[in-house]
């Protein structure tokens, strides 16, 4: 059992592009739920919309890179409006059900066999990364040290992904210290009160939904840039994992989503490495490696329950500014 390798993998996961994508998606839900009180259970749908818009624009329409990014953003704005128009006037739990349902609709549509020509069906699509790799500003070579040693391309995707995370964090910081953020937080507390003070609650909720959705869609793009896009990744479970990350870090905090995503991704890799190591070293003999993977998901479920009950403000949240209505 190679402890060095296991720790190395886990440490490497800390800065992987997947973790950056998770962090972006979690910042998106932080805007929705942590600040505006919107129950978006369809973040996987936003990610899928972003990823597929980007990939289809690149492959089917031969769009240049910037246009593909624009397509991802525009698609998620449209998606947010489609979700928001029927539900933002209704009680919060309707939004939860409609977002989760819409995310599933997106997944069914991109995996249906009838659209294989554009979406690749259940197998997904690949081979859209050339343009992104083509604008890599880093010369060929080896960068970094230890677990964080990267080729030029690996470095480029990480710089890009984490760069977006930093941009998103700055954006959220600027907005939430402003009067706009005050209105949005007021809506989280009690939208009727805010309405009685002359604010157009519906418009603010829509803006928050769009903003968090765009962040989710960018997360979707970062998620697929180093690999292929596959519909199976965008199930409801992905949304729930991102919620777990957000709650781990603290819902209404600036760095909570990022820290949560890092902890989640690292611990997942670490526990996987340890379990697989123990199995291959014949220390654990009664379960298979497939089952080892499943144990991790059980732990995620249990952690989510315990976290919400015992530390709803997350690891970095302020005890007073709890992330749930009392």
């Amino acid at each position, binding site marked *: 059992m190679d402890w060095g390798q296991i720790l190395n993998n886990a440490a490497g996961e800390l800065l992987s592009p997947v973790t950056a994508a998770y962090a972006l998606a979690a910042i998106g839900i932080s805007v929705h739920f942590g600040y505006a009180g919107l129950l978006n259970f369809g973040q996987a749908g936003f990610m899928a919309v972003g990823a597929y818009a980007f990939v289809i624009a690149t492959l089917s329409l031969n769009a240049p890179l910037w246009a593909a990014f624009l397509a991802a953003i525009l698609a998620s704005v449209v998606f947010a409006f489609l979700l928001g128009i029927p539900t933002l006037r209704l009680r919060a739990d309707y939004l939860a059900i409609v977002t989760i349902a819409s995310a599933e609709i997106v997944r069914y549509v991109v995996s249906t066999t009838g659209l294989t020509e554009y979406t690749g069906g259940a197998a997904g699509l690949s081979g859209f990364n050339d343009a992104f790799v083509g604008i890599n500003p880093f010369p060929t070579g080896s960068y970094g040290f230890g677990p964080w040693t990267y080729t030029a391309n690996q470095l480029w995707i990480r710089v890009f992904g984490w760069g977006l995370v930093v941009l998103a964090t700055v954006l959220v910081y600027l907005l939430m210290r402003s009067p706009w953020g005050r*209105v949005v937080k007021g809506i989280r507390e009690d939208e009727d009160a805010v309405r*009685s*003070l002359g604010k157009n609650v519906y418009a603010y909720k829509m803006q928050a939904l769009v903003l968090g959705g765009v962040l989710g869609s960018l997360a979707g793009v970062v998620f697929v840039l180093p690999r292929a896009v596959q519909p199976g990744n965008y199930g409801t479970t992905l949304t729930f994992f991102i919620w777990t990350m957000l709650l781990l870090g603290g819902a209404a905090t600036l760095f909570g989503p990022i820290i949560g995503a890092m902890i989640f991704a690292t611990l997942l890799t670490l526990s996987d490495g340890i379990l697989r190591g123990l199995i291959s070293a014949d220390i654990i003999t009664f379960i298979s490696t497939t089952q080892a993977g499943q144990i991790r998901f059980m732990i995620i479920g249990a952690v989510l329950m315990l976290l919400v009950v015992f530390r709803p403000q997350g690891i970095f949240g302020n005890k007073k500014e709890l992330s749930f209505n009392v």
Partner: protein
Amino acid sequence: MSDTAVTHPLVAGAVGPGCKKVDPIVVADSVTRTFGGLTAVDVQHVEIPRGAITALIGPNGAGKTTFFNLLTGFDKPNTGSWSFEGSSLAGVPAYRVSRKGMVRTFQLTKSLGRLSVLQNMLLGATKQPGENIFTALIKPLWRKREEEITAKAEELLARFKLDAKRDDYAASLSGGQRKLLEMARALMSDPVLVMLDEPMAGVNPALTQSLLGHIKELKSEGMSVLFVEHDMHMVRHISDWVIVMAEGRVVAEGPPETVMSDPAVIDAYLGAHHDTDLGDMTGSNPVIEAKEAAAAHHGGNADRKDEH
């Protein structure tokens, strides 16, 4: 009032249910609202006088809060029209009603618990450029207005004796302090008409006096006040005009000194059917409340909202 000869300085003509006011600020016509088969509100005509403190009273289930919700755009009526300072409010969303200068508070206080007291106040201010998502990003665009409204908020907080709590979370305030905060917050927008839904409910006696004082002050500053209340003592003390509702209708109107002896009012309180008004009923027993309402009519303080 059966005596048609009675007149009043606020009233143009004879005093009676639905009578014309000299200078009305709100006029409502044939406003009805039904829930399922129950008619909650059926107001043929009513006018709220300008520059006065008007009390809206009635037994439970009389439709007072529902009528409040309808006037302020928080609920939609089945029929009817109503206007504020001459402009029609039918179909106008709640936030626009508020911007026109008709600001309300709620029966169960809606202080925004996880915002500080000062933030609560600032939220009440209008014309803030920083509330636009794009200008919000650039602080210089909204810093000046922010300073103005902060100064104003601090002034109001001092007046309502909440200045020591400025940076506390609103959730940490007592029930009475929340009522004060909600009223102070409503004043941030310089309203023309302040509508208070049971301002005394759940307020301890020590704070009651100061709340009464604040309401009178509103009038002296030129605002009109409409409030729903159960406490007859308070109604008698501060209101200039009383409108009595029962079973969704306006059954009597008049100055506080005389309206209590109106047979229609006594009948409303003692003989009413007490249809349970679910919105009003959280955690209480309809039978006991009916008795309490009757007792309240005789001057006893039977405020059922003490627990809030």
